[in-house]
């Protein structure tokens, strides 16, 4: 999109949600996997 205009714009909520989901889902996956690994520290090791 051309950005040289001073016309107001609106950031679609769907784009915002998609962007956060794209980074959030892998991050939650990584966190969950790491928490599972870290839990072994408290599992009588």
């Amino acid at each position, binding site marked *: 999109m*051309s*950005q*040289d*205009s*001073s*016309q*107001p*714009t*609106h*950031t679609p909520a769907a*784009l*915002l949600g998609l*962007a*956060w989901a*794209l*980074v*959030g889902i*892998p*991050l939650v*996956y*990584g*966190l969950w*996997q*790491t*928490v599972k*690994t*870290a*839990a*072994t*520290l*408290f*599992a009588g*090791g």
Partner: protein
Amino acid sequence: MAVPSFLARERIVARPGFNRWLIPPAALAVHLCIGQVYATSVYKAALVKHFGSSLTAIGVVFSIAIVMLGLSAAVFGTWVDRNGPRAAMFTAALFWSAGFLVGSLGIATGQLWLLYLGYGVIGGIGLGIGYISPVSTLIKWFPDRPGLATGMAIMGFGGGALIASPLSRQLMTWYDSSYNPADKTSVPGGSSVALLFLTLGLIYLVFMMFGAFIVRVPADGWKPAGWDPSMVKHRELVTRESVSAANSIKTPQFWLLWIVLFCNVTAGIGILEQAAPMIQDFFRNGTTSTVAAAAAAGFVGLLSLFNMGGRFVWSTTSDFLGRKPMYMIYLGGGMLLYIALATVGSSATWLFVLLAAVIISFYGGGFSTAPAYLRDLFGTFQVGAIHGRLLTAWSAAGVAGPLIVNGVLDTRGTPGELVAGDYRPALFIMVGLLAVGFVANLLVKPVAAKWHEPSSTPATTERSAA
């Protein structure tokens, strides 16, 4: 060096009404990918076996990448600031992805030098450009909360390894049916690692390009709704002036911060580098440890979580406490924690874990608070380039930290027979380093006016809008 017009800074100036909360995911899309560099241990053993080389020879790949990170961030920092975040993210994506593809070719053809060139040199350049690419943009979009903004992005760098480790294990399981990650003696074949590199290179290319194409820079004079810079509580170290990257390195403030970052990172790496054997050695009884190998792996995972969490939490806290007091906590608090670790750390596992976890959270916080500290001292004008130059401290610490710890441990005995007392000299060296960093931070004063850019220069006016 000109960039194609679709990458130019002028093409990505946001129009009024643009939602700035689209910028953190753009930054995270880059940092989550390049954070993979801390997940190399997943395939280290496979590469040793595949190339028939030593752990050291394979470890060099990681070292080259970290050294290239610092060098490329320093060299390309000004280019990144001049051309904007899209050009930088786009370039970083190409280098980071190409690094994986060349590395994959090296693994597939049994050419270790190609792995050095690919992942180490080419990928390392992508790391450096990618690391600094969103920093100054985030600071400009969040002038009211720069610590929160940079904390979010640099937290992603910590999070990248959390994603890449399990993802890599899963992919190698698919590519090599004989590989069983649950079995510690199972090692994936070289061809599965080559395929892993190919896959990661393509995934990261798409992911980072997504960040490059949604990122925007604020228009001149833009500020968050309802935020008035003149109403912000004045802090002595927070400037409204601008200092160029070239001038910044002539100031004592830059080098004091360099020492602060170097000391903080070296001390943190001291624990991170040895985390798994260290917890077992601290609780060794004769030839066996009361901490099992699986629990030691859990300890490493826990440290990763605190490393990542510290990057966000402490950097955000610095918006309220101020950057200098925050580093006093990292360095002064770190000294006390290291002393406790050396003296009473072996008395209980929970105490050891707690002390190490907080130390690592300070290590992460030191990384993510640095850009906001630079912005306070030098302004937003060329903060990305200045940050790039500061990251050479990371490269130096990446060499010094393991050298100190391994050097001390080598004189104390053989791995597998060390006990808590053998770590004390290394831990007290870290206390000394943190003390040096603490003093350096205390000496930080506002930058002298002679280094400020003339306020009438167009570049300064343009970039200091935030």
